[in-house]
C-alpha cells in the first residue's frame, strides 16, 4: 500500500489526512504544539497510523508525497515575531506603508486608532534615484550613500531587507543594484525586491508584499528546514511539499525563497477540497465553500472548476490591515460562529456579534463561566445538540444555563425561549448568507447554480437553511468536514505564478512587447518546473491571463487569454470580446465603444500531482430505510417541539436516506436535517443534503 499524507497545523488542532492508493481516507487529530510544531504532527501521525494498524515508521516509509500546511507564518505576524526588517524605498516616499490606499469603515466612528505600518517609519530608509513611468532613469542612484546605509543596517543588526522603489516594474535597474549591494555588504541577509515578487503597478501593493515576504524569510527558512530534517530523521524519503496561499503547493526551496506564499497556507485549501468533493459526488464544478469554526466563518468560490483568486487579500481588515499583494485564494472571513453573542440593542433589534465568547469561556452551555447567550447556546436550547454527546462526548453541556441566558433576551422581546433561540439562529444565518451573496453575486454568479460544500465543526447546525435561502439545491457535508483544509491538500497540484507589467491598449496593441512579456513568463515558469526535480513533471499546463480595464477605469478584471501568443488583430479582437462579456457579467453593463487597457500579464503553471486515484463515486443506490438511534424533541420555529430522529453517523451505511426532522451526530460535527429536508449518505460516505423539495 502506498500513501499520501497532508498536514494542516491550525491555531488549535493539527489535522493529518492520509489517503491510500484506492482513495480511502484516514484522519488523525492532535493539539498543535506551538513551541515545536513537529511534536503535534508526530502525535497526529501516531494516532492515524494506529488507526491504519501500522507503525509510524511503516507509514512514512510507504508514503510518496507529504504536504505541509502551516499557520507558522501568520502566527509570527500576529504575535510580532517576524524579523527586524528594514524598508528601503524611493526618496520622497517614506510613507507608502503608512498611507496604504486610504479608506476606512464607519465614517462616524472616531474611537479607532490609525493602524501602525507593517514596518515602522523608524526602520524605513529613503534611497536617492528616480525612474519614471516610462522606465527612464530621471535621477541616478547614489551608491555611496547606499553603501553607508547598508553598513549602518548591518551594524544595527537588521535581519532582513524589503526593497520597493517607484516604477521598478517599468525598469528594475535600481532595485537590482540594491540587491547586489545587499549581497556584497550584508552577505547572507535575506532580502526581497518588490518587482521580483509582484510585477504589477501600484507601489503600496508591491511594498506591502515585499515587506511581509522579507520579514518572514529568516524564521520560515529555519522552520521549514527544521521540519524537513525532522521528517527525514523519522525515515521519510518521498517528496515534501508546502501548501500555498494560491491553492497549490510548492517545494521547500521555493517556499523558503518566497515565504509570503505560505501565509494563507491552510485556508486556501478549503476550496480545493470542496471542488474535489463536488466532482467526486458528480455535482459539478461550480462550488461555494463555507467553513464554519467556533469564531470565524470563511467562504470561497469555485467557478467552472477555477478557484476564485484575489490580489486584494488583506492581513487583518480591508484598508486598515496589510495587503498581501500576491494573488491568493479569495476566502472571505467573517467574525461569526458558534461563539457569537446574541444581544438586543437599545432600539429593540436582535443582533448577533460581532462580540464572541471565543473558545474560552465560550458559550454559556460550556459551563466555563460564559454569561452571554451565543449561537451554540441557541442550538442547545432548540435540542439540536445532544448535551451528552458534544464533541463525541468529551464535553457535557449545561442546558439550563443556556436556557436561562436566552430567557433574558426572550423576556425583553416578549417571545418564548424557543422562538428567541430560533430567531438567534436565523439572524446568525443572515450574516453568512450576506457573505456568500457578496462573493457570488458580485462576480455575476448565481448561488442557486452552485453546489454548497460545508466544512468546520459548527457547519451542520445551520448550513441547510442557509443553502435554502441561497437557493442552492445541492449541499454536501464531506465526511472530512472537520479537516477540510488538510483534505484539500490531497488534491492540490504544484502551482506557480509569474506576472509581467506591460501596459498597452486594444487600439494600439503592442504585439512585440506583449509577446515578449508572455515569453518571459513562460521561461520563468518552465525554469520553475525544471527546478522541481524528482516530481512527475510531465503533466503540466500554463494558462495566461491579463488584468485589463476600460480606459480611465482603475480596477482591473482578470481575463483569461484566448492565445499564448498574439499574432494578429483577430487575437486582439477575441480578447476584447472576452473582456466586454466579463464586464457585462460583473457590472451589468459593458461599453463596446471603449478602448481596453491591458496592464499586468500573468501565467499560471499547474503541474498535476498524481497522488491517488479519485474515482467518481457510484451513483447512490435506492435509499434504504434506517431506524433512528434515539428520538428527542427539537424546535424548528413552530409552536410546539417536534419528535426528531437522532442518528449516529457511524451507523449510517452508504445509500441511507434520512428524512427531517432529524439530527445526525458525528464525532466532530452535528448535522441538523430540518423538517421538509432530507440527507443521504453517498458511497464516499459524504452527506448530501436536499434542502429544496
Amino acid at each position, binding site marked *: 500500500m502506498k500513501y499520501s499524507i497532508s498536514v494542516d497545523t491550525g491555531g488549535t488542532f493539527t489535522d493529518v489526512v492520509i489517503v491510500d492508493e484506492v482513495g480511502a481516507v484516514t484522519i488523525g487529530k492532535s493539539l498543535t504544539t506551538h513551541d515545536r510544531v513537529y511534536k503535534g504532527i508526530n502525535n497526529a501521525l501516531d494516532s492515524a497510523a494506529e488507526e491504519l494498524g501500522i507503525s509510524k515508521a511503516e507509514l512514512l516509509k510507504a508514503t510518496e508525497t507529504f504536504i505541509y500546511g502551516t499557520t507558522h507564518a501568520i502566527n509570527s505576524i500576529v504575535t510580532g515575531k517576524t524579523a527586524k526588517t528594514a524598508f528601503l524605498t524611493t526618496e520622497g516616499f517614506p510613507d507608502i506603508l*503608512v498611507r496604504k490606499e486610504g479608506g476606512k469603515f464607519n465614517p*462616524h466612528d472616531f474611537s479607532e486608532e490609525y493602524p501602525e505600518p507593517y514596518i515602522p517609519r523608524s526602520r524605513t530608509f529613503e534611497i536617492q534615484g528616480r525612474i519614471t513611468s516610462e522606465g527612464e532613469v*530621471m535621477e541616478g542612484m547614489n551608491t555611496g550613500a547606499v553603501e553607508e546605509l547598508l553598513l549602518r543596517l548591518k551594524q544595527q543588526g537588521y535581519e532582513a531587507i524589503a526593497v520597493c522603489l517607484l516604477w521598478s516594474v517599468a525598469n528594475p535597474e535600481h532595485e537590482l543594484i540594491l540587491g547586489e549591494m545587499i549581497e556584497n555588504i550584508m552577505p547572507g541577509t535575506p532580502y526581497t525586491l518588490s518587482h521580483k515578487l509582484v510585477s504589477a503597478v501600484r507601489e503600496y501593493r508591491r511594498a506591502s508584499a515585499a515587506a511581509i515576504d522579507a520579514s518572514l524569510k529568516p524564521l520560515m527558512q529555519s522552520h521549514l528546514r527544521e521540519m524537513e530534517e525532522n521528517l527525514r530523521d523519522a525515515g521519510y524519503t518521498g517528496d515534501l511539499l508546502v501548501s500555498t496561499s494560491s491553492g497549490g503547493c510548492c517545494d521547500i526551496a521555493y517556499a523558503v525563497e518566497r515565504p509570503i506564499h505560505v501565509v494563507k497556507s491552510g485556508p486556501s485549501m478549503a476550496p480545493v477540497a470542496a471542488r474535489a468533493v463536488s466532482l467526486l459526488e458528480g455535482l459539478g464544478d461550480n462550488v461555494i465553500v463555507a467553513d464554519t469554526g467556533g469564531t470565524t466563518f470563511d467562504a470561497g468560490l469555485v467557478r467552472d472548476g477555477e478557484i476564485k483568486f484575489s490580489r486584494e487579500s488583506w492581513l487583518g481588515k480591508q484598508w486598515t490591515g496589510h495587503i498581501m499583494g500576491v494573488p491568493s485564494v479569495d476566502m472571505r472571513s467573517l467574525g461569526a460562529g458558534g461563539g457569537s453573542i446574541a444581544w438586543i440593542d437599545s432600539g*429593540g433589534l436582535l443582533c448577533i456579534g460581532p462580540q464572541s465568547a471565543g473558545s474560552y469561556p465560550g458559550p454559556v452551555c460550556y459551563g466555563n463561566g460564559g454569561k452571554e447567550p451565543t449561537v451554540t447556546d441557541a442550538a442547545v436550547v432548540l435540542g439540536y445538540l445532544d448535551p451528552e454527546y458534544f464533541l463525541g462526548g468529551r464535553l457535557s453541556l449545561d442546558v439550563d444555563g443556556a436556557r436561562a441566558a436566552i430567557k433574558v433576551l426572550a423576556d425583553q422581546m416578549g417571545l418564548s425561549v424557543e422562538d428567541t433561540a430560533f430567531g438567534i439562529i436565523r439572524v446568525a444565518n443572515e450574516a453568512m448568507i450576506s457573505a456568500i451573496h457578496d462573493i457570488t453575486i458580485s462576480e455575476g454568479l448565481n448561488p442557486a447554480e452552485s453546489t454548497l460544500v460545508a466544512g468546520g465543526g459548527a457547519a451542520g447546525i445551520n448550513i441547510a437553511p442557509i443553502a435554502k435561502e441561497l437557493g442552492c439545491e445541492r449541499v454536501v457535508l464531506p465526511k472530512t468536514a472537520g479537516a477540510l483544509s488538510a483534505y484539500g491538500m490531497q488534491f492540490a497540484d504544484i502551482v506557480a505564478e509569474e506576472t509581467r507589467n506591460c501596459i498597452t491598449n486594444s487600439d494600439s496593441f503592442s504585439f512585440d512587447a506583449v509577446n515578449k512579456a508572455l515569453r518571459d513568463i513562460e521561461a520563468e515558469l518552465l525554469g520553475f518546473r525544471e527546478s522541481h526535480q524528482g516530481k512527475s513533471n510531465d503533466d503540466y499546463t500554463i494558462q495566461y491571463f491579463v488584468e485589463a480595464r476600460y480606459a480611465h477605469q482603475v480596477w482591473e478584471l482578470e481575463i483569461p487569454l484566448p492565445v499564448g501568443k498574439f499574432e494578429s488583430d483577430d487575437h486582439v479582437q477575441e480578447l476584447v470580446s472576452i473582456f466586454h462579456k466579463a464586464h457585462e457579467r460583473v*457590472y451589468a453593463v459593458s461599453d463596446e465603444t471603449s478602448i481596453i487597457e491591458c496592464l499586468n500579464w500573468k501565467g499560471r503553471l499547474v503541474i498535476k500531482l498524481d497522488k491517488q486515484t479519485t474515482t467518481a463515486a457510484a451513483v447512490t443506490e435506492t435509499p434504504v430505510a434506517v431506524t433512528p438511534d434515539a428520538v428527542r424533541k427539537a424546535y424548528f420555529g413552530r409552536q410546539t417541539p417536534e419528535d426528531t430522529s437522532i442518528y449516529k453517523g457511524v451507523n449510517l451505511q452508504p445509500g441511507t436516506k434520512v428524512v427531517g426532522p432529524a439530527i445526525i451526530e458525528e464525532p466532530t460535527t452535528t448535522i441538523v436535517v430540518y423538517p421538509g429536508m432530507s440527507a443521504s449518505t453517498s458511497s464516499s460516505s459524504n452527506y448530501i443534503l436536499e434542502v429544496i423539495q
Partner: protein
Amino acid sequence: MNAMNEKSAEQMDSAMDPILTSVLINRMDGIVREMSNTLMRAARSTVINSARDFSCSIVTADNQLFCSAEGLPVHIFGGHIQTQSMCDLHPDLKEGDAFLHNDPYMGNTHPADHTILVPVFFEGEHIFTVCAKAHQADIGNSVPTTYFAGATDVYHEGALIFPCVRVERDYETIDDFVRMCRSRIRVPDQWYGDFLASLGSARIGERRIKEMCAKYGKKVIKEFIVNWLDYSERRMVEELRSMPKSRLINSTSHDPFMGVVDEGIPVNITIDIDPESATMEVDLRDNIDSVDSGLNTSEACAISAVLCGIFNCMKSGIPANDGAFRRVKFLMRENCAIGNPTFPHSCSVATTNVADRLVNVAQSAFAQLGKGHGLAQGGIGMGMSCAVVSGRDFRRNNAPHVSQLFSGASGGAASASTDGWLNFSVSVSGGLMYQDSVELVEIKVPMLVKSLKYLPGSAAAGEYRGAPGTELVYGPVGNPMTAAIVCDGQEFPPQGVLGGHASEGARTFKILEDGTEVRLPNMVQEELKEGEWLRGQDNSGAGYGDPLDRDPERVRHDVVEKWETLARAKDIYGVAFTGNVDDESLAVDLPGTEQLRTRLRADRVASMS
C-alpha cells in the same frame, strides 16, 4: 426616561418583529453594498473609482430616506428631496424609467454630483426609488473644474443642469441627453463610462429590491419600512435623552477668497438639545446672505454636513435615515449662503469647503459639554493634493485630460480617546476616500510626483493629537498643466478643543524653474510649465485636550516614529527622555517629565498674569 422606555417596549411588542427586521435590514444593506461595489469598480473617473466620491441610497415611495449604507456623509441627506421632485415632475412615472438629477435647487448636493434615480415597481406599485449619486470628473463648466469657487452665478459656472430629466424609458437610454452631454462635457467617454456605471448600479439595486419583494411580499415589506424608520427614531431618542439639556453656540470661518469674499465666510451655529422631548434644534439662520461665488451651500449639503458633525459625536450605529432625522429640526433662512441660497447663485463648491466647516463647527461645539464629548476640528481643505489637473497628454497625441487628484490628505481631528486619523481628507468624506497610487496617477496624468510624505512635528498637539497633513510636490511632464485648487484652512486653520492646539494651517507654493518658492493664494487656478512645481502642505487635524496631559509613552512613540521632534516633545508635551532614537533605546524619564510638566504649567500661569 422610564416612560419613553416603556412606550418603546410597547410599540415594539405590537409592531416590530425584532428578528424579521434584523434579517430584512441586513438584506437592504447588502443591496446598497452591491450597488456601491458596482459603481466604484465600473466607474472611469478617479473621483469615483479611487476617491469613492459617490453614494447609493434607497428612498421609500413616499420619499423618506430609508437606507444609505456606507455612503459619503455629505451625501446622506437629500435623496428624498430629489425623489420628491421626480414624483412631482413626472406623474407618468413607470417601470423602466431612469432620471438624471443634478440640480442643487431641487435637493441635489452640487451640479457635479450626477444622481441617477430609478423608481422600483413591484406588482405595478411604486415601492422604492434607488439613487446612485456620483461626482463627475467634468460637467461642462466654463472652466475645467467641478469646484468653481469663482463662479459669480450659475451662468458663469456653466454646468449642464438636469432638473430631474428622464434618461431612460422602458429600459432604453434616451440618446438626446447623451448627445447633449457628449457635445459639452470634457473627455466625454469618461463621463459616458461613469453614466453607465451609475445606471448599472441603480438597475442592480432595482433588480435586487424586486427579488426581495417577491420573496417576502408587499405587506411584509411595507411593515418593515415603517418598523425600520421607527426603530431608527427610537435609537436617536435614546441618544438624545442621554445628553444634558443645553444650548451650544459655536462659530468658525471659511478662509477669504480675495475679490469675492474678502473677509471669508463666517459659519455660525446654535444647537439646542432637549433631552425631555428628545429633540435637537439646529439654527443656521445667523449666517450671511448668498455670495456671488460657488461657495454657497445647498440645502442638502448644509443639512448633511451638520448631521455628519452630530453623528460624529454620538454612539455609532444609529441608522442615518429619515427615522433618526425626524428628531433633528433645522432652522434656515431664505437667501442665506448656508442652506438656502437663492437662484441663480452658484453652489459649485457646496459639498466641500463651507460644508467641511459645518461638520467641524458642529462636532467641536459638542466639546462644550466637557471632556469626553465632541471632537476637535480637522479634515479641512482640499489642498493641491486634491487639485483638479488638466491639460494635454503628450503620450496620447496631445489629447485633453482632466482629473481630480487624491494624492494626499488633510489630517483628521483628535477625539476624546484617539489621535486623528491619517488619510482623513475632508470632513464631509468621513475618512472613507481612497488614496491614489502614485504610479497610477503618473500613468493617468502626464505629471511627475517628486515627493509625498508627512513631516515630523506637523501634527497639532493635544492630549490626543491631530493627524498630520501630507506634504506633496508635483509638476507637469511634456505640456503645461493647469491645477485648480480650492483650499481652505490657510488663513483660519482647524482649532483644537479643551486645550488642544490648532493646526499650523495649509499652504501652497509654486517652485519656479530657478528654485524660488512663491506662496500661492488659498484658491487658485495655476498653470505650470515643465520644470515648474507645486509644493503643498495639507492641514493637520487639531488636538483634543492639553498636550501636558498626553501619555508620555505616546509621545515617546511619536518621537521614535518621527511624527514628533525631540524639541517639540520637550517644549510642548513636557516629556523628558533617556537613551536615543537611533539605537532604539529611547525611554521616558518619568521623574524628569513630571518636573518638566510642573514647570511648563507654572510658566503658563505666570505668562497669563
